[in-house]
């Protein structure tokens, strides 16, 4: 190939601004306005990459988004793993090299362009400035509509009316319900992903030229005819000096004129309508001569360095098709055009609708004995023979042929190969033209980097909101190791002097069991339920009665799903006759509030109740252990802490270390405990005072061990949506005499009454150092029998107990309450651990410690 820059011309170029770039290690220059493809053609580069499967040399075929041949990896100034050379705007310092097949990510994270998301609301979105767009846009602007035009190219071919918003270098990736569009705008320093909601969408995406398949049609120097003309006119690049034209239609007349005007020769035009066809190419890495055959079978060889091909034009209607727009076969155009169906907010205009396209002969490939080098999809290295083999193998649908050959799955999404493949299949089956159209198209219209989809939602700070408690800074200063609980960051443990997890947790657990510990429990979900009917409402939501709770008292309760399965748990504190504070699990707060509001609005609108989330208004410091009363006394309080005055499951209002406080006698570890609820503003002050008074900070890991020793369940750990209160051995929490509550009826369904349901038990491994794996299946023998192995249950929690100096686990075991004393085996990774089944409370089963 002898591509070269013409001395003048090139409507897109700014010849006063040369641009230096590097391709495959060669330093080259182009001009402002070039694409990488036009600059490579101008520098005489014919082979851009090698094809992925066959390793054949490949050059530039098109001037746009339909490129199926020339792919590159860009390493500077921003990384792109694989992109068509026609889609890369030339910028200073651009560094690229050929890349076939799939992109590869380097080991070190490369520099990607910053990107952000933006939203736009308009009456009219115009996609593309293909012909037909202007009339529609002008009318809308006149009406006073907000009109947005997105154009893939860096500039508009013509003028635009005032009052129009224009995005260039912007490609609509997809259209979605109700006029929603995603648009990728590629800026020099930053990309923007636009979310556009439009009242109407006008598709003026134009049409793409279709190739014709013949032997060695993938040689560099075989190009789409319209692209050849565009390189001359827009980029001042002459792709070849002697051009043969192979055509089915009249659109190549203009190509001939453009080439001749630019000084090229046209030694031959092979027009299929006159019985001529191209049969093959001479030359290994670029076109040196073209073989043609005539209507009488006469054969000629024409010396040439360029073959400009036009097999007709396909409307660019993929965006319409993907949202339900239909296609019909048009015999005159020998292609598929939008049939007018589809969403009522979408209008396809101009050549995208088939209007104004040249009539074309229906000609898909040059017949030959050997069709194995008639390439249909260049990037997938698939030929006419591959399509015929798929049909010969019994496939009839183009969708199946696509999946068998991968034709249409490459970066160009079948823009050049789709119609060709469909008609080769139709012909091979003896079906008429247009019997089945090309495969469906799906977003994205062009590849989009994941970094653009991520936008600014990346990195540790922006990927997901991070919730911290009012005491968080104190934990950071203490060197806590944090874990994510939902969006909350909670201290998992507080290592001291180089402790690992196990030693730190052991120390923290023993502090609570033998002295005093402090837990930041601020993440507990908290909802205030207020109104004259609050008590009635909570009676219907919880399994037990909340209406007879006296002001100043607390009750633990379950909420069930309508199916009778445990949904969430927590305590209800009665603050006043018409006012409760209910706590939820840390992760369940939003779901519980949703559920309260759902029932109040949809089933019981007569109840006068309102619900407010107050999770973040209150900091909660749980002080627990045999020394808890002394620690709280040391803080200075006007609350009488004596057991008689302040019994288990009550709360009192007063001051603690000078600040207003609700003190609650609840415990998640079985020791004497005071939960201090204070305003968030005072959280840090109270935490620091508690720690100064000698309480040992402990984290969620110790909290888990301590609660499991007492057989206290965690919703979502012991339960999985298939567990009833009775399965947990907590039938006492269900009050069947109080009237209806959500889930009650399901507790007497036949399935919930089965006596072989899994029930909560504790497991004591025979080897007190063996730790069953959480999630391990429970089986009935030490040796695993041949599959299928009967499963008896599964381990839900498993820990080392520092106070018992042994391991233990909680498990859900079939008919578990009848199996106390029996042995089961926890199986994991082919090994089994023998365990004795016991009741779920392995420490202090008589609850002798909670009053201190």
């Amino acid at each position, binding site marked *: 190939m002898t591509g070269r820059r013409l001395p003048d011309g090139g409507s897109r170029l700014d010849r006063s601004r040369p641009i230096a770039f590097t391709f495959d290690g060669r330093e080259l220059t182009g001009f402002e306005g070039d694409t990488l493809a036009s600059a490579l053609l101008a520098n005489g580069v014919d082979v851009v990459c090698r094809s992925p499967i066959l390793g054949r040399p490949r050059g530039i075929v098109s001037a746009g988004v339909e490129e199926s041949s020339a792919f590159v990896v860009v390493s500077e100034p921003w990384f792109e793993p694989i992109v068509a050379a026609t889609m890369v705007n030339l910028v200073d310092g651009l560094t690229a090299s050929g890349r076939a097949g799939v992109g590869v990510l380097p080991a070190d994270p490369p520099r990607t362009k910053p990107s952000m998301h933006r939203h736009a609301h308009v009456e009219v979105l115009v996609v593309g400035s293909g012909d037909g767009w202007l009339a529609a846009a002008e009318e809308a602007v006149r009406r006073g509509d907000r009109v947005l035009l997105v154009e893939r190219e860096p500039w508009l071919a013509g003028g635009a009316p005032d009052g129009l918003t224009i995005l260039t270098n912007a490609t609509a990736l997809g259209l979605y319900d*109700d006029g929603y569009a995603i648009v990728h705008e590629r800026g020099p320093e930053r990309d923007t992903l636009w*979310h556009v909601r439009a009242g109407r969408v006008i598709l003026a995406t134009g049409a793409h030229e279709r190739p014709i398949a013949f032997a060695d049609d993938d040689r560099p120097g075989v190009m789409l005819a319209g692209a050849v003309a565009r390189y001359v006119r827009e980029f001042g690049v002459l792709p070849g000096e002697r051009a043969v034209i192979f055509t089915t239609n009249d659109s190549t007349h203009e190509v001939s004129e453009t080439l001749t005007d630019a000084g090229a020769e046209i030694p031959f035009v092979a027009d299929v309508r006159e019985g001529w066809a191209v049969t093959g190419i001479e030359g290994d890495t670029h076109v040196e001569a073209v073989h043609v055959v005539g209507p009488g079978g006469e054969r000629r060889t024409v010396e040439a360095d360029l073959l400009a091909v036009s097999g007709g034009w396909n409307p660019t209607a993929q965006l319409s098709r993907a949202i339900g727009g239909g296609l019909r076969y048009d015999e005159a155009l020998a292609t598929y055009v939008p049939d007018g169906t589809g969403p009522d907010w979408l209008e396809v205009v101009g050549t995208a609708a088939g209007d104004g396209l040249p009539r074309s002969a229906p000609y898909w490939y040059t017949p030959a004995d050997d069709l194995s080098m008639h390439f249909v999809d260049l990037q997938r290295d698939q030929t006419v023979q591959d399509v015929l083999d798929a049909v010969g193998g019994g496939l009839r649908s183009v969708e199946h042929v696509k999946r068998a050959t991968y034709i249409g799955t490459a970066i160009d999404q079948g823009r050049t190969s789709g119609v060709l493949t469909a008609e080769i299949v139709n012909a091979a089956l003896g079906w008429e033209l247009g019997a089945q159209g090309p495969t469906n198209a799906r977003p994205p219209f062009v590849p989009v980097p994941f970094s653009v989809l991520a936008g600014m939602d990346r990195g540790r700070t922006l990927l997901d909101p991070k919730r911290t408690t009012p005491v968080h800074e104190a934990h950071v200063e203490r060197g806590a190791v944090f874990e994510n609980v939902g969006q909350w960051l909670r201290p998992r443990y507080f290592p001291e002097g180089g402790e690992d997890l196990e030693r730190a947790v052991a120390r923290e657990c023993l502090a609570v069991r033998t002295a005093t510990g402090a837990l930041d429990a601020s993440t507990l979900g908290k909802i205030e339920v207020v109104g004259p009917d609050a008590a009635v409402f909570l009676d219907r939501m919880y399994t037990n009665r909340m209406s007879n709770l006296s002001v100043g008292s607390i009750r633990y309760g379950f909420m069930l799903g309508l199916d009778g399965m445990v949904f969430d748990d927590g305590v209800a504190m009665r603050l006043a006759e018409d006012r409760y504070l209910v706590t939820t699990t840390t992760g369940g707060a939003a779901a519980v509030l949703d559920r309260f509001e759902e029932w109040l*609005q*949809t089933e019981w609108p007569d109840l006068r109740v309102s619900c407010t989330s107050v999770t973040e208004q209150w900091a909660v410091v749980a002080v627990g252990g045999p020394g808890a009363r002394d620690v709280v006394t040391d803080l200075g309080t006007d609350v009488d802490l004596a057991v008689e005055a302040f019994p288990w499951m009550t709360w009192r209002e007063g001051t603690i270390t000078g600040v207003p406080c609700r003190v609650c006698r609840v415990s998640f570890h079985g020791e004497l405990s005071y939960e201090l609820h204070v305003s968030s503003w005072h959280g840090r002050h109270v935490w620091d005072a508690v720690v100064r008074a000698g309480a040992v900070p402990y984290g969620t890991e110790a909290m888990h061990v301590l609660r499991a020793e007492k057989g206290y369940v965690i919703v979502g750990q012991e339960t999985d949506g298939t567990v009833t209160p009775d399965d947990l051995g907590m039938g006492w929490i269900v009050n069947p005499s109080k009237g*209806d509550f959500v889930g009650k*009826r399901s507790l007497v369904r036949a399935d919930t009454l089965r006596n072989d349901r899994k029930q909560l038990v504790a497991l004591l491994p025979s080897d007190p150092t063996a730790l069953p794996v959480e999630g391990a299946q429970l089986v009935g023998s030490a040796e695993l029998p041949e599959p299928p192995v009967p499963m008896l249950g599964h381990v839900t929690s498993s820990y080392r107990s520092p106070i018992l100096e042994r391991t233990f686990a909680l498990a859900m075991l079939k008919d578990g309450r009848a199996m106390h004393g029996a042995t089961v085996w926890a199986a994991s990774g082919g090994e089994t651990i023998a365990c004795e089944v016991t009741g779920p409370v392995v420490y202090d089963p008589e609850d002798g410690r909670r009053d201190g």
Partner: protein
Amino acid sequence: MLLVRCPWCGPRDEIEFRYGGQAGLTYPADPEALTDDEWADYLFMRDNPKGPFRERWFHTAGCRRWFNAVRDTATHRFVATYRLDEEPPP
């Protein structure tokens, strides 16, 4: 991304809403009077028509109010949205 017309807030993006399943299923006045089969019918069985379907939506990230809609499951288009205290359109 559907455009959902909240009866209180007007047209908003689908991501502001939560889907609530079939509308018009009333919690039984006395669940304990129902047989297992009748209760299971209320609990599990839902219509699945091709065409207009009455369903519930919740404006989670907006006014936090539940409302009803008629949506055509074949075209994905909303025929109407209406408040809980309004009758469905004919």
